[in-house]
C-alpha cells in the first residue's frame, strides 16, 4: 500500500513541494483535492523534500490536498486499440470512449543506438513542388515548419500528412486552438485517415504544463509501432508552446536562464524529442514533422535557433508560400539522385534563376535600367511563383519537373540556362 501525504509545504507557480520518503526521481503522483485530481511528476529530490510539477496547474491546490505517489513513471498504452482515438495532454480519452491500459510503455525512453540506424533512402511524396522538387522530404527525417502566427501552417501540415504514404499518423497538439484541433481532426476524418491515426491533443484552454507530456507520449507510441515494422508519421504542433512550458517550469524552479529566459538545457530537451526520428535497421521508421512558430519572425530566437541545429532542415512558410531560400532539406541528396535524371539539374537551375530574379527585382525597385536579360528574369520569376510556389499547386514530382522545363522554355533560350547538353537535348520544351 502506497502512502498518502497530506502536507504540501510549498506551492510556487505550477510546482508543489511535499515531504515524503522513498520517492523516485521522475515518478508520477496524483494530487487530489476539492478541485479534482491531477497528475504530477517528480522533478527534484532534496532529502525529504520532493518537488512536483502539477500538470493541471497549481491553482486551487490547498496545503492539505492529498498527494499519492504511484510508484512508476508516466506510461502510455501503445496497443493497436489506440488507432482512431483522441486523448488529452494527460493521456486521458477526450472522445468520451473508454480508457485503454493495455501494453503500457514508459515515455521518454532511452535513445536509439546509432549503430542500429540506417541511412534513409525513401522519398515521401507530398504533391507540393516546393517540397518534392526543391527540398525533398525523406522518410525518417525530422523537419519543422518555421512560420509566424497567422500563416496556414496547420493546413500545410495536414496536407503533407494526407498525401504522405505512411501506415500510421500520430498527431500531437500543444496549445492548439480549439478550432485548429477540429480542423485537423476533420481533415483526417474526411480523408478516411482517422482510423489509422492517434491524436494527443492539448488545447490552448488546457493548463499550460499539461502540454509537456504530449511529445513524449506521441513518440513513445510511435516508437512501439515502428518496432512493429510500421512507417509512422508524427506531427507535432506547436513546439514553441512546448518550449515555453519548459521555460515556465524552469523559472519556477529558480534555474538560471541561459538565453531570453529559456533554460540551459533547451537544446538537449528538444533534441531528445526530435532524435526519436529514426529509420531502424530491420524495423519500421518514424518521421517527425513539426510546427515551430517564430516569435516576431526571428529565426535567431532561441527556439527556432536551437531547433535548426537539431533538425534535418526546415520548411520556411512565409506569405502563404514555402520560401525557397530559408527552406532546406538536409536529406534530399539521399533521394533526389534516384528520382528522375533531370531532378537535381532542374532544382539547381530554377533556384539559381529565382535568386537572380530577386536581385533583378531589387534593381527594378531602385529604378535601375532593365536589360533584356532582366526582363526575361522578371517573366521567369512571376511564372515560378505562380506555377511552382503557390501552395494550391498539387502535382506529382514528374509533372512538376515537366512544368519546370516548360517555364524555362517559355522564358529562356536553350543555350542560356547553363545545363548539361544531354539533359536539354532530352527535355527542352520550345515555346
Amino acid at each position, binding site marked *: 500500500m502506497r502512502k498518502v501525504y497530506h502536507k504540501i509545504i510549498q506551492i510556487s507557480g505550477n510546482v508543489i513541494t511535499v515531504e515524503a520518503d522513498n520517492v523516485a526521481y521522475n515518478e508520477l503522483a496524483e494530487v487530489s483535492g476539492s478541485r479534482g485530481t491531477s497528475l504530477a511528476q517528480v522533478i527534484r529530490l532534496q532529502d525529504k523534500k520532493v518537488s512536483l510539477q502539477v500538470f493541471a496547474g497549481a491553482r486551487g491546490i490547498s496545503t492539505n490536498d492529498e498527494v499519492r505517489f504511484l510508484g512508476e513513471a508516466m506510461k502510455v498504452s501503445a496497443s493497436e486499440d489506440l488507432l482512431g482515438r483522441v486523448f488529452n495532454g494527460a493521456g486521458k480519452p477526450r472522445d468520451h470512449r473508454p480508457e485503454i491500459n493495455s501494453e503500457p510503455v514508459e515515455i521518454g525512453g*532511452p535513445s536509439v543506438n546509432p549503430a542500429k540506424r540506417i541511412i534513409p533512402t525513401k522519398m515521401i511524396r507530398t504533391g507540393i513542388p516546393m517540397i518534392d522538387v526543391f527540398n525533398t522530404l525523406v522518410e525518417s527525417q525530422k523537419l519543422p515548419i518555421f512560420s509566424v502566427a497567422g500563416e496556414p501552417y496547420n493546413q500545410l501540415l495536414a496536407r503533407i500528412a494526407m498525401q504522405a504514404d505512411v501506415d500510421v499518423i500520430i498527431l500531437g497538439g500543444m496549445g492548439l486552438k480549439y478550432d485548429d484541433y477540429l480542423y485537423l481532426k476533420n481533415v483526417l476524418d474526411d480523408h478516411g485517415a482517422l482510423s489509422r491515426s492517434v491524436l494527443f491533443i492539448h488545447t490552448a484552454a488546457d493548463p499550460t504544463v499539461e502540454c509537456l507530456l504530449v511529445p513524449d507520449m506521441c513518440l513513445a507510441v510511435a516508437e512501439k509501432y515502428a518496432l512493429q515494422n510500421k512507417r509512422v508519421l508524427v506531427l507535432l504542433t506547436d513546439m514553441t508552446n512546448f518550449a515555453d512550458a519548459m521555460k515556465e517550469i524552469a523559472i519556477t524552479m529558480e534555474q538560471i536562464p541561459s538565453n531570453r529566459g529559456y533554460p540551459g538545457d533547451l537544446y538537449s530537451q528538444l533534441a531528445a524529442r526530435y532524435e526519436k526520428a529514426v529509420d531502424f535497421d530491420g524495423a519500421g521508421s518514424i518521421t517527425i514533422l513539426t510546427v515551430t512558430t517564430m516569435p516576431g519572425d526571428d529565426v535567431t530566437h532561441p527556439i527556432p535557433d536551437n531547433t535548426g541545429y537539431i533538425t534535418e532542415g526546415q520548411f520556411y512558410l512565409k506569405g502563404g508560400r514555402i520560401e525557397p531560400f530559408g527552406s532546406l532539406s538536409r536529406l534530399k541528396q539521399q533521394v533526389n539522385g534516384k528520382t528522375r535524371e533531370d531532378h537535381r539539374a532542374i532544382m539547381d537551375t530554377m533556384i539559381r534563376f529565382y535568386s537572380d530574379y530577386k536581385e533583378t527585382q531589387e534593381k527594378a525597385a531602385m529604378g535601375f535600367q532593365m536589360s533584356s536579360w532582366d526582363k526575361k528574369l522578371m517573366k521567369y520569376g512571376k511564372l515560378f511563383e505562380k506555377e511552382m510556389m503557390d501552395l494550391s499547386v498539387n502535382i506529382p514530382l514528374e509533372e512538376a519537373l515537366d512544368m519546370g522545363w516548360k517555364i524555362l522554355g517559355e522564358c529562356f533560350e536553350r543555350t542560356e540556362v547553363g545545363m548539361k547538353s544531354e539533359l536539354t537535348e532530352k527535355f527542352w520544351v520550345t515555346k
Partner: protein
Amino acid sequence: MAEQIKTGSIAGVNGNMLTVRFDTDVMQNEVAYALIGDSRLKCEVIRVRGNLADLQIFESANGLKVGDKVEFTSALLSVKLGPGLLTQVFDGLQNPLPELAEKSGFFLQRGLYLNPLDDNAEWDFTPIAKVGDKLQAGDHIGSVPEGIFKHYIMLPFSWQGTWEVTEIAPAGKRKASAMTAVVKNEKGETRTATMYQEWPVKVPITCYREKLMPTEPMITQLRIIDTFFPVAKGGTFCTPGPFGAGKTVLQHAMSQNAEADVVIVAACGERAGEVVEILREFPHLKDPRTGQSLMDRSIIICNTSSMPVAAREASVYTAVTLAEYYRQSGLNVLLLADSTSRWAQALREMSGRLEEIPGEEAFPAYLESLIASFYERAGLVELNDGTQGSVTIGGSVSPAGGNFEEPVTQATLKVVGSFLGLSRDRSSARRYPAIQPLESWSKYTSIVDAKKLAGARSTLQRGSEVNQMMKVVGEEGTDIKDFTIYLKSEFLDFVYLQQNSFDDVEMATSASRQRYVFDAVCDVLNGDFTFETKDEACRYFQEVQQLFIDWNYAPYESEQFKKIESDIKAKIGENIKNA
C-alpha cells in the same frame, strides 16, 4: 581499510545531478556508481561540500531515490589504450556501440558498460626493449602492427620514475592482456606491463621530450583552406557557423581527404543521422593514400544530442586522449570535434544545477580556461626516441543565432591558430565551402607563394568594396576598371574558393595541383585586360570561368587536364594587353 568499497547514499536528485552524502574520503572527479536494481549508473564527482558530494550522472536519473547507495571507485574517469582502437565506434565513455547493439538491441540500455578493447585479441608482438634496459613512462617495450601502422607498446604513462626491464616477452603472437614486460624500480617494486593501459581523460599525456612549433601544413585538399587559411600539423583551427552553413559537410570532407595518419571524429551532441552516414559510408570509402578502407585509419566517438548530456562533456576528452595516445606512436593525428558548443552547453547545464554564479549567457566563468586547455592538448611533439608526432584539433562551433560574438566562439578564437568562419550569406548563395574569405584568418604558413597570396587577397577585398558600391550606384555608375576588379574577385571565388565536395575529382585537390592551378588563377587576376563594354567583360570572364571549372573537374595531369590548360592559355592571351 583500502580494500573496502567506499560508499555513500543519495541525498538529492536534480536532473542529471546527484547529491550524495558520504562519510569516507572522496576525491574530486573520481568515478562513482549509483546502484539501482541490478544496474550501476556511472557518475563523476564534480564538487564536494562538507559531507555532501555533487555528482554528474552519465545516464538518465529516472527512478533514483533518496537513500539509494552510491559506490566510489577512487579512480578518475579513464579510457583504455592499446592496439585495436582504430576502426572502432565508441560512445563518449568508450563503450563500443556495435557491441552494445548486439547486447541490448535497438536502444541504449542504461547502466550497460562494455570492455572497449578485446582482452583476448591476439597481436603479433615484436620486442624492442631488452632485459636490463632502463625505461621511463612512454618508452617503447615493443611494437605490434595495427593496420598499416607500427603501434608501439609503451611503458604505461602513469608509471613514474625509472624502471629496469627484468623480463621481456619473446616475438610472436600474444594475447593483448598477456605480459609484455616485467619491470622493477629502484625501490624494488615489480610491475607487469601488458599491451593495454589506462589513462584519465582529463589529464594530457605528456610523455615526450618537448613541444615544437607547428610549421608543416596539414593538407586538407580543400583549396580555400590549404591556400588561404592553412592548418598546420599540430595546430588548431575552428569552424564556427550558423545552422545550415555546412559545418558538418566541411568536417566530413576533411575527415575523408586530410593527409593525416589517423583521423578521430568526435560527434559531440549532434545529429545521429550524420554519424550514421560516417558509420555506413567510411567502410566503403577508400583511403587514397593506402587503398585501404577509410575506416582503417579512423576512430569515431559518438555521443549524439539525445544521448546523456554529461557523457557529451566526456566525449571530447575521450577523443583527445585517444589522439594523444596515437601521437605517442609517432603518428600525425587529426581530431575533428563537432560541435564544441554542445560540450559547452553541457557545462552550462551542469553549472546551472550547481547554482554557480553565471558568466555571459549563463556559461560558467571557467568556460574559457577549459576551452583553452582543451585546444592546448594539440601540438607537434618530439618523442623520447627523437621522432615526431602531432595532434591537430579542429572544432566546429555552433553559435546561437549564428552570432560570433557569443562566449564559446570568442573563447575559441583566442586559442586557435586558424579561424574558418562559415557564413549564412555564402551558404544561401550556394557558395560552398561557405568559409567567409574576408573574415577568416590563419596564423600558419600557406602552401603557395606569400606574395601571390597577398595579391589574391587584395583582389577579393577590393572586389567586395566595388560590389558594395555597385549596390548603391548601380552597374551603369561603375567605372569599367573597378568593374573588372569585381569580375576578377568573383572569378577567384568561383573557380578556386568554391569546391564541390560531392564530385570525386573536385572534392580533393592535392597540394601540388593547388600550387599549379593557383599560379594560373593569378595570371588571370594580374592580367591587364582591356574591354570596350561591361557586357564584353562579363562574357569574357564567364568563358574563362567555365574553362577553369571544367579544368577543376578533370583529373590532375590527365589528357583532358592538359587540353583544357592550353585552351585557358589561349583564352587568357586573347585579351591581355602585354601577353
